[in-house]
């Protein structure tokens, strides 16, 4: 929470009348901010409430009908998890996301180390090329890579291999960029001293650079985790077996089948949100740091 905390310091009002004047002076601000909080919270609350309402109630009245809230049930969750395949899709999401987070973290931090602390010809040019590759959209890969995966006859597209490889590759430019910019700020003396003592690059990387860069690596890991967890497009293209689909794809299929069955759809949509919400609230500090580092360089 630290990064979001209020850092402006104001003198506290001394007397009661001062407090009242100050409060009234700010009433418009309080009103506007309360309205904003409502607009941002109510749609999600509506979906959350609906996910616990029996579908008979859902068809009869709006979710805001508080008198029906006593009928709350877990049936919707039970049904989407067991009979609609969201349970299996949850596991698929995990199985797609974990390698798609860890593999690019390792590869990007190694490359970032080379670009920050090993001297070699054209190093800065290579780094600028990586900055340029930041803007390559995933769409350019779709047709050639799907064709190549299909022709390889390896079953990458029916398993998770294709989506792991694609997520890894398209995460690298940002990952290398972020980590290289962090690694380069590490104390030079420390790394020089280790080098004079005869430490190899592998040793310097493992014992100095990585341990000192945990906040940056964690921020990148959280971002990549949420990005792949929340991804729909890459899964649509690179996961071509129905039983391997993650939750995002499953929900779009449910929307096709049950267009107005909001009891089921809301429960399914919330299942996708649970993991990101836990990550967001428990690791918010890293999350905001990563966001700031990623956009305001």
């Amino acid at each position: 929470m630290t990064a979001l905390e209020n850092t402006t310091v104001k003198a506290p009002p001394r007397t009661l009348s001062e407090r009242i004047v100050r409060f009234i002076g700010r009433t418009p601000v309080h009103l506007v901010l309360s309205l904003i909080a409502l607009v941002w919270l109510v749609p999600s609350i509506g979906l959350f409430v609906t996910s616990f309402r029996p579908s008979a109630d859902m068809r009869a009245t709006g979710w805001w009908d508080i008198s029906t809230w006593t009928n709350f049930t877990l049936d919707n969750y039970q049904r989407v998890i067991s009979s609609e395949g969201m349970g299996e899709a949850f596991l698929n999401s995990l199985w797609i996301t974990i390698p798609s987070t860890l593999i690019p973290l390792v590869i990007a931090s190694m490359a970032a180390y080379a670009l920050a602390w090993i001297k070699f010809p054209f190093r800065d040019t290579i780094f600028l090329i990586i900055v340029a590759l930041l803007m390559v959209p995933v769409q350019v890969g779709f047709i050639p890579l799907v064709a190549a995966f299909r022709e390889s006859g390896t079953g990458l597209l029916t398993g998770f291999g294709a989506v792991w490889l694609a997520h890894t590759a398209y995460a690298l430019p940002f990952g290398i960029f972020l980590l290289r910019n962090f690694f380069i700020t590490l104390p030079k003396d420390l790394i020089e001293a280790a080098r004079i003592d005869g430490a190899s690059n592998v040793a310097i990387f493992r014992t100095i650079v990585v341990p000192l860069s945990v906040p940056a690596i964690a921020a990148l890991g959280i971002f990549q985790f949420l990005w792949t967890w929340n991804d729909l497009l890459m899964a649509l293209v690179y996961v071509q077996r129905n039983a391997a689909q993650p939750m995002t794809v499953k929900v779009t299929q449910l929307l096709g089948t049950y267009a107005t069955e909001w009891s089921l759809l809301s429960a399914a949509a919330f299942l996708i949100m649970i993991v990101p919400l836990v990550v967001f609230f428990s690791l918010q500090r890293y999350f905001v740091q990563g966001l700031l580092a990623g956009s305001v360089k």
Partner: protein
Amino acid sequence: MTATSRTASVSVAKTNQGGGGFSWSVLIFLGPAALFLLVFLVYPTIYTLLLSFNRGRGGEFTNWVGLDNWIRLFTNDPNFLRLGIPPSGALWNNVLWILFYVSLTVLFGLMIAVMATRVRYESSIKAIVFLPQAIAATSLAVIWRFVYSPDPDTGLLNALLGVFNAGPVALLGNPDTVNWALIGVGIWGSVGFATVILSAAFKGISSEVLEAARVDGASETQIFWRVIVPMVSLPISVVAVTLVVNVIKLFDLIYVMTAGGPGAASRVIAFSMYQEAFPQGQFGYGATIAVVMVLLLIPVMVYNIRRFRAEAVQQ
């Protein structure tokens, strides 16, 4: 982390001793990344560019057609671009998104950032508007399909309109309203991002500047437009560029909320690329749209490289 990465320096790094010249270390550390980037980014970009001059139907990449795909895309495909009054098509919808989504997201983000600094619950309000950033666009789309539901006993929006004896309206079912309804959801999803970044920038303005303006008799509106906005113009441009990139890559929200419909009224280019290439199997045509996306992103690429080089020189 921002503070430290700003001190990053290319010139310092140049003097580091890493053995110099070619070494096995470089190959070991940089090799895997280089291989991935060459195989999965560089090679497909070239392949896709070539494919945009090919018919490419049904996985056959042998029928070279010159500029046919390009000519059809810009002159003979009303789903992609129809010039008229008013214009329509995916590319035009992207223009609408850039004009309204980007400017309103920045404006609301800055307003919330400025207002929030005046209250004790600043961190809570920022966390609330930031929350959609953590959520899958798929879930966000389900949330808003529900809000927009035409049935006043289901959709909150039409229930509220019903209180004022208006509606019900099917915003997502009407070609005249669908883009505005979607842009509204986009803004709702992104304001938190702008708020957090611009709030950090706004805190960098010394309170003396704001006090001086107040002492000189400037109104709060004048202070907002004449003092705060110019002083955070660089972070605003960074946020705006990020949002423009979001628009060019926009897919999930459209796919889940409207599937580009009704008809093709709410298509955007990233949606058209997927739609033409996969369900339709027109690989050459889809590749052409992918190249259009790359072309639109090249100015951002140049901007990033320039900004990065400028920073490196400053150090």
